[in-house]
């Protein structure tokens, strides 16, 4: 198994698990937040879609420049829109990943903020970090939101109190 194969398999596994969480977000509680400083449930779920979207930026180019002043975050207004956006982003990412080989994953990728290089790392590392771990981090947060919203929590890596 090559590193690229391993990353593809992992992306499939994690996005499948993530969809089960997103399906359970209650449509009438998208404005709910557990604390005044927290994301709302809708913002958190939208941000999870954004994690998937990094895949294209990582593998279709060798750098990405962010200007926080003009960056517009993904925001969905309903659960059907959330799932449609997620599915479309996953499908695009799968197409991008299909053509990635072992040479591509070792290429350096630069993150720039307002034109200044923030870091440079191999693409495999950036993908693990910005897409997969980032997604799993926020999905972990979403699991606590679901619990607090009295929604049965799906298992991710082991049993939950509900499954």
């Amino acid at each position, binding site marked *: 198994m090559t590193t690229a194969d391993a990353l593809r*398999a*992992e992306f499939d596994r994690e996005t499948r698990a993530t969809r089960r969480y997103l399906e359970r977000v209650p449509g009438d509680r998208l404005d709910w937040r557990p604390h005044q*400083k927290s994301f709302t449930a809708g913002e958190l779920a939208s941000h999870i879609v954004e994690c998937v979207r990094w895949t294209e930026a990582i593998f279709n180019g060798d750098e990405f420049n962010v200007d926080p002043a003009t960056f517009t975050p993904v925001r969905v207004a309903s659960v059907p829109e959330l799932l449609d956006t997620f599915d479309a982003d996953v499908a695009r990412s799968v197409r991008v990943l299909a053509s990635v080989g072992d040479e591509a994953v070792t290429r350096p990728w630069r993150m720039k903020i307002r034109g200044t290089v923030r870091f440079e790392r191999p693409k495999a590392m950036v993908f693990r*970090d910005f897409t997969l*771990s980032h997604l*799993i981090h926020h999905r972990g947060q979403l*699991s606590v939101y679901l*619990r607090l919203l009295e929604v049965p929590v799906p298992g991710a*890596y082991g049993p939950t*109190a509900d499954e």
Partner: protein
Amino acid sequence: MKLTQLVLDELEREAELSRRALEVVPAGKADWKPHERSMIFGYLADMVANIPNWVAMIVTQPELDVAPPGGPQQKREPMNDSAAFVAALDKSMSAARSALQQTTDEHLMTGWRLLAGGKPVIESSRYIMIRDTINHWVHHRGQMTVYLRLMGARVPALYGPSADDKSF
């Protein structure tokens, strides 16, 4: 690209993020939980500090029984402040680092088993098991950041800025 190096680099990066989360653990809140069906905070923070030990076990041992037929092995003393959690993380990372530095990509592709009560639950390559372990670590650390927010702690920036730390 060498898998051992990829895993090691990623483990180091995730350990840094885990350290940030463990450094702000409020003392004496181990029994707190946000919902009656949730895990207690102390258990969650214990996993965030100790999961790198699982990586070491996957590399160096043939299998692990999470519920051995002879009953659980001796319990660890519960940790109750940030210094104890950070020290546990340092120790578990040291074990994971040392195991990965002494292994090979070929060994990571060999099989490994997770058992419960003597019965196999998961059989997969060591590499896949390590990957799942890192993901599992990130999952529980994500949960922990919501607990920290609800407990009134200062939430550190991890993959991006938090409401308390915009410096990212």
